[in-house]
Each structure stands twice: as structure tokens, then as C-alpha cells.
């Protein structure tokens, strides 16, 4: 089941399926190794729910959830 990354909930693990041009962070996320096929783990959200802490490739990065539009992922079972 495909979801948009900005809808990811804390504790969820997903695999990135596609990153469209819609996304504003594309280049910077690639520097951290986010490409289709990357596994992500949503660690937690900020108190206001605006930031998400995502773990990928052994690193945890903080991103604004509204900047995650245009990235699609599949939930891991």
C-alpha cells in the first residue's frame, strides 16, 4: 500500500518507492542516501507535529513534514 512520506506515522517502517519532481528537498535528501529502495524508520514527531525524525542508513535526520510531499513509499510488513 503506497503512502506519501508526509503521512508517515511514528514507529512506521517503509521503503521508498518513488521520488517525484514535486519534492523540494530532493537533492539534499539524496546526499543522505534517500533514493528509491531506501528503508526508512520514522522515529518520532516534534510536539507540534510539524517535523519528523527519520532514520535512514544509520542516520537520523529531522525534516519538515510538509517538505516530504512527492515522495512515495510502501509500508513494510
Amino acid at each position, binding site marked *: 500500500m503506497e503512502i506519501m512520506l508526509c503521512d508517515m506515522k511514528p514507529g512506521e517502517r517503509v521503503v521508498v518507492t518513488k521520488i517525484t519532481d514535486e519534492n*523540494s*528537498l530532493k*537533492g*539534499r*535528501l*539524496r*546526499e*543522505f*542516501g534517500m*533514493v528509491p529502495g531506501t528503508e526508512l524508520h520514522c*522515529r*518520532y514527531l*516534534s*510536539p*507540534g507535529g*510539524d*517535523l519528523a*525524525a527519520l532514520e535512514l*542508513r*544509520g*542516520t*537520523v*535526520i*529531522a*525534516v*519538515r513534514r510538509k*517538505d516530504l510531499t512527492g515522495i512515495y513509499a510502501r509500508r513494510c510488513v
Partner: protein
Amino acid sequence: MKTVALAGNPNVGKSTLFNTLTGLRQHTGNWPGKTVGVAQGTARKLPGYTIVDLPGTYSLEGASEDERLAAEYIASDEADCIVVVCDGSCLERNLILTLQILQRTQNVVLCVNLMDEAERRGFRVDGAALEEQLGIPVVLTAAGRRRGIQELLEAIRNHVPVPPEQVRAWDDPVQRASQIAEKCVTRSANANDGWRVVLDRVLVSRRRGIPIMLLLLLVIVWLTVSGANIPSAMLERLFSAGYSVLKGWMEPLPLWVAGILLDGVYATTTRVIAVMLPPMAIFFPLFTILEDVGYLPRMAFLLDRSMYRCGGCGKQALTLCMGLGCNAVGVTGCRIIDSPRERLAAILTNAMVPCNGRFPTLILLGSLFFADAGGALVVALCVIAGVLGAMLTTGILSKTALRHEKSTFIMELPPFRRPRIGQILVRSLLDRTLFVAGRAVSVAAPAGAGLWLLGNTEILGALAQLLDPVGSILGMNGVILLAFLLSLPANELLMPIIMMILTGSSVLTGVEPTGQMLLAAGWTLETALCTMIFSVFHWPCATTLLTIRKETGSNAKTAAAFLLPTAVGGILCAMVNLLL
């Protein structure tokens, strides 16, 4: 002279490695064409080499200034050898940059650092396998504990330059990094990361996150304020003794020479050191501990929402915290902000956070006029006011002069590390001492000479009278306004200059103002309040202005940095004056 460049991701202990190699033999130079400084130094154990510390970057393809500088430097082939520093706990991500660098040059040594932390977290790195995969020498180190440094130095010394034609072709760094890491890094099943996860949850939790942050800041302010009292008093006694000794030596000299040197230069310089050094020597080590532990990105994480609403970002909150210690440091710290307009807004508003140098003024006036509420509390309130002012001003700027498209925000949340407290204390103490001493000599000393000269004429009194009308509009008076102007070199001088003018002397005396003295000089509650407000919201000190000039490279922006907080202060004081 050969050159070794240190490259790597942020947060990998690169600076620690650089400091370990160079000790104090370093200076911040300017790489041609850039305004951002690059640290360079030499190492005793590596004679014949210059060591360059490149800014931390996540990749060579980024758009930020740091990344372009690093990419250009590497492409320029100026370095004979590049040491890529990696974090043993997240080698996979670090290898992305390593492979990007290897696409451009084969003159690389891989240094897998922070191995002590990695091992503690259950990671095992196979150095030999890495060497085989990458085709370059690999050294495992823990720079903080001086582990592996000898091996690293040897690898650098034994490095044979590889001509550009022999550069090995690397494809897709992201996929390759993943494959290599899989072969060379293992993690044991019972890695004890549990406490880090729990700590993280607590520090950014909805209910406890912000209260914990406020508590930490209050504790730091309290420790700074109360801890500085005794050392300050001791330093003042020491310098007083020095004064008497020097006075004796200067007997044979003409009066005015002794006057300028002793009552002018010596008195002012020592005053600045005595007042400024102890608080900074407490604040900055504490702040560095927070940074070393990894708490600061969590703070930015909590505050990004509020900062974003003001057109800023979470990282600006960190620069405001740095400004609490010293605004010049806060301004330099704005480099961590990626968006140029957000960065400028942060630079322009940083001085609204009262620095350590203004604490004594705020405590003194607070306790004399507003019932001894406790020095730390007064300062904390002023800090909050300053932060709110900075945020508001940033908001206004982002809608007017510095309007920009919404920028993006991405920040690493590094794993918590055990702080190396001993090392931090020593290094921070040394850094701070040198900084304050340097500033005292270069800025306060000439100011002291100038003040003495002015004090010996009728000029000060006349100027004060001239400024009275403006001062009154602002709820203060000419003497206070003049003192503000004259304390441009160093904020600590405000109250001493006021006392100097009021007592009609030409020496910055160590006389502590009492309530009666100020009341006798015509002060009211309103005067004290406006003085405190203006102390928070007025032009940055000379050192900060010079730093702003260096960071922005623009006289216009420096002028804006001068006028902006002043305007805010002026408006607030005028309003208070009207209302009270």
C-alpha cells in the same frame, strides 16, 4: 611544504582530530574568493605539512557555501593528501561523500573516527576489508582518546601521490556505499542503544520537551551569573594589586603618561577582563558540553515550528543561544543556517539577545531598583524579552526587506555521545581566555586611552548635556546615552562609564553604584527600566560589528545591524516613557 586536507561529514569529530593534530598551532585563514574562513595549522609530529580543516559537508554536490568551498578545494588539487574522516557508527552514509571524493582524486586516506563510541554501540568495522574495497589506506581512530593517531600520521607520511590518470572510476556512490558498508560493518545484536532512544523521546516529548529546555537554559544562566562572582572579585583584587605596583614603577614618568597608561589603558582593559572572563569561562564550556552530547539539534527540533512562523528556522534558535555567551560568536554561528536570507536575518537580530557582557548591568539595575529578585531571574527575563524581540524582528524582516520563498530545513540528529568533559573544559577555557584577552587588548585598551583623555577635559559633561534631550525622550538622560555610545567597544563598560561621569573622575573606578548614588543623580524607576531595555536592544558592540562585517562582507548590512536593534530599543524606550 605539503598540504593535508581534512574532509568529512559534520559531526564526525573532524574538528577534534584537527585540534588533536595541531594543538594550538592553528589560525583561521581565508581561502581565496570566500568570506568563510578555513582553519589551517601545523602539527609537531608532521613536520613539513600544513593541515587544512575543510568545513563538514554531506556531499560535494550541495548548494550551500560550505559544500561549494569543500568541492572547489578538492577539485583544485591543492592538497597533496585528503583525509576523509568518517563516523564509525554510520559508515554507510559517510561513504557516500568518500566515494564522491574518490571520483575526483585517489590521493585519499580514510580515517574511521569515533570508534570508541561505535564499539560502545556494538559496531565492528573491518578496516582491512574496507581497504580492499576502496583501494586506499584505512585507519581506525578515536581522536578524542588519541587512539590511532600514530597510525594516521604514518599513513599520511607514507602516502604516495597518485597521478590523476590513475583515478579509479566509481559509479553511483549511494548504492556502492550501501554495498561496501554491508561487507565491512557488523553490528552485534545486543547493542545497548536503549537509553539513547528513551532519552530522545523524553527530550522532544510534547509535555516535557520545552520545559526541560527552559530549565536547562535557566540552569546555565544561573551557573554563569552566580559562578562568576567570586572569580570576578578575585581578578579585580589581583588587578588592583597590579595597579599599585605599576603606579610605583611609573613614578618617574610624566603624569600624563602614567595617566593614559595606568588609568586609561590598564584600568579599562583589566576591568573588561575581570568582568568578562569568568562568565564566559563558565557559559561556553557548559554550552559546548550540550553541543558535545548532541542536545542542540534536539533544541532546534523543538523550536523550528515557532521560528518558522517568524520566517526563520530552528537553527536560528541555536545561534541565539550562542549569542547569550557572546554576540560575535552567535553571529559566526549563523553559518549553520543554509538559506542566505534567513542567515542574514539571524545575523541582524542576534545582538538582541543580551550577551555575558551585559549581564552585570542587568543584574545591578535589576537588583537596585526592582527588589532583589535574584540576579539570574532578572537576566533570564531579559533574555526572554530579547529572544522574543529577535523573533518578532525576524518575522517583520521576512515579510519586508528580506522577503524570501519558503526555504527547506533538513538537519541531522546525531546519536547522544558521552561528553568529554575534561577536554571540553580545557579547550573551551583556553579558547575563551585567548578570545577575551585578545578582545580586551585590541578594543578595550585604545578605548581606555580615549576615555581617559576625554575624562580629563570638560568634553564628557558637555556631550552629556547635549544628549540630554534625546536621552529624555528615551526615558533616560544624556549621561546614560553618552555612556551607551562610549561603551561601543565593550558592553561591560556601561555602568563604569556612568559612574566615571557622575563622579567627575577620569578613571574607570571600581566604585559600585548604589541606589542612593543613582537616585541622587536623578534616576527613577523608569530610568532604570529604560536603561535595561536599551541595554538589551541597542547596537552591537564593536567586536560583533567587526564580525558582522567579516561574515557579510557588506558595509550596508553592517550598518543595518547597527540600526535595527537600536531602532527597536528606541521605540520601546520611547513608548515606556510615554506610558509611565
